[in-house]
């Protein structure tokens, strides 16, 4: 029995990984198109309705795991961090009527919400954190998005080893979710550099990679095809789903 499974799966793996034309067909051909259609189906069926479960103080992971990239190596970021982000400004621009430059104090003053929610990583692990910050909707409202704005794109301070900048995006429906925060504090302390200081996105209704760290600018756009490799985010450009609610 085991041998049958072994042979069948070896053939499958071999066929799919070693055989050039087959692999090409599976990764770029109509099969790829079909695979991507499942993402739209998931988005349509599961969407971003409802609110993520909120927890009690006792459930919080005080030592919240750091994942992915840690403190940005960017020199602009290092300079800002050295001065405790006194010179930091969050830009909100693009398709808006009133472009904004928020200081951290102005961001805090724009609104305040605390949520204790679970962070589900695409890798499979989960952690619970206490996040405090400003609902993204408030910040966007102050900039007054134009009628043709459909997405907000979060540009971040970080670049990976090959120099590719980190970015993420949400559509305005997801951005308006009451739990979608621009987080400033984690577990009752200002965010540290590893967790995304001074401002990170927090989207508890989607997988963790949507919650971009080190946000420097929010750009409102009609489409994200011309940003990065065009898939709507750093991880999306590496093949992950844009809709990360599943």
């Amino acid at each position, binding site marked *: *029995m085991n041998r*049958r*499974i*072994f042979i*069948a*799966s*070896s053939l*499958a*793996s*071999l066929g*799919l*990984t070693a055989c050039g034309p087959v692999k090409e067909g*599976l*990764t770029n051909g109509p099969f790829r198109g*079909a*695979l*991507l*259609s*499942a*993402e739209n*189906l*998931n988005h349509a069926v*599961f*969407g*971003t*309705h*409802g*609110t*993520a*479960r909120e927890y009690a103080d006792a*459930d919080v*992971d005080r030592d919240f*795991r750091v994942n992915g990239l840690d403190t940005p190596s960017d020199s602009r970021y290092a300079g800002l961090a050295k001065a405790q982000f006194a010179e930091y400004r969050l830009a909100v621009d693009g398709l808006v009527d009133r472009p904004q430059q928020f200081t951290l104090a102005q961001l805090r003053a724009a609104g305040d919400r605390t949520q204790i929610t*679970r962070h*589900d*990583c*695409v*890798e*499979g*692990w*989960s*952690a*619970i954190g206490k996040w405090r910050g400003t609902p993204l909707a408030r910040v966007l409202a102050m900039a007054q998005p134009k009628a043709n704005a459909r997405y907000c794109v979060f540009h971040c301070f970080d670049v990976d080893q090959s120099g590719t900048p980190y970015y993420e995006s949400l559509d305005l429906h997801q951005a308006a979710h009451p739990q979608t925060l621009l987080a400033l504090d984690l577990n009752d302390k200002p965010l540290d550099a590893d967790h995304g200081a001074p401002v990170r996105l927090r989207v*508890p*209704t*989607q*997988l963790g990679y949507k919650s971009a760290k080190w946000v420097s600018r929010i750009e409102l756009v009609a489409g994200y095809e011309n940003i990065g490799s065009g898939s709507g985010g750093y*991880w999306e450009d*590496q*093949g*992950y*789903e844009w809709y*990360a*609610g*599943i």
Partner: protein
Amino acid sequence: MSGERVYRHGVAERVTHWLWALAMLVLVMSGLQIFNAAPYLDASDKSNPQRRVLAIDAEMRNGVPVGTTRVFGLTFNTTHLLGYTNDGMNGESPRAFPAWLTLPGPQDLADGRRWHLFFAWALFVALVVYLISAAMRGTLRELVLRPSDLPKLLPMQAYYFRLRREPPPHGTYNPLQKAAYTVVLFVFFPLIIVTGLALSPGVDAAMPWLTPLLGGRQFARAWHFVLMALLVGYFATHMVLVLSTGLWNNMVSMITGWYRLKDHDGVGP
């Protein structure tokens, strides 16, 4: 009656049977790809090593890499099989399941997820079409366990163990087959779909009662894995029985629909 050919499986049933067989294979293999990114299971809502029920890991012992599998606190050396395994590049690396078991490549979480989520829909649609078609043709009632089958379960098992010369009289499917098909179709499949949905943050927000019902997010992941193992166990048993009860006749019937009756085979429910 023995030797007579009967039309047993309708077109929709045969097509969907093979479709969900394919979907299951891809789902298991892409699921192991996803599992490899966090190769442990916790009976908890958040990740919690204190409540870890399974961990597949690699460590160095006396300068030699060793694959370990820890189940309910018991540790086994599983080098080459689990933990420290084939990496698909002519060598071995710390990875829970070997490269030849993970789709679509040795290490590809992004595409593994895409394949998994696509074939989950394929399995769901195939199952629904199969159930509707079988119910409409009346074949579903032939394979569902009924109260009147319960007293026949032990005698049938006794026949399998060669403790009895004759099986109890039965219809199209014997009582043990009915029990297996009923459990797989109406318990395992719905549960593996529900536990899969519970892993999605979007579904958690839309149906906040679901994940706590399963013991939490990580617990739901553990149930999803256990159900996968049960379905693989069912598949193995299914293969043994297909092979031992006449591979040719079984395959022909699942391809053309026509089945040649054997001794003891009845027709009807």
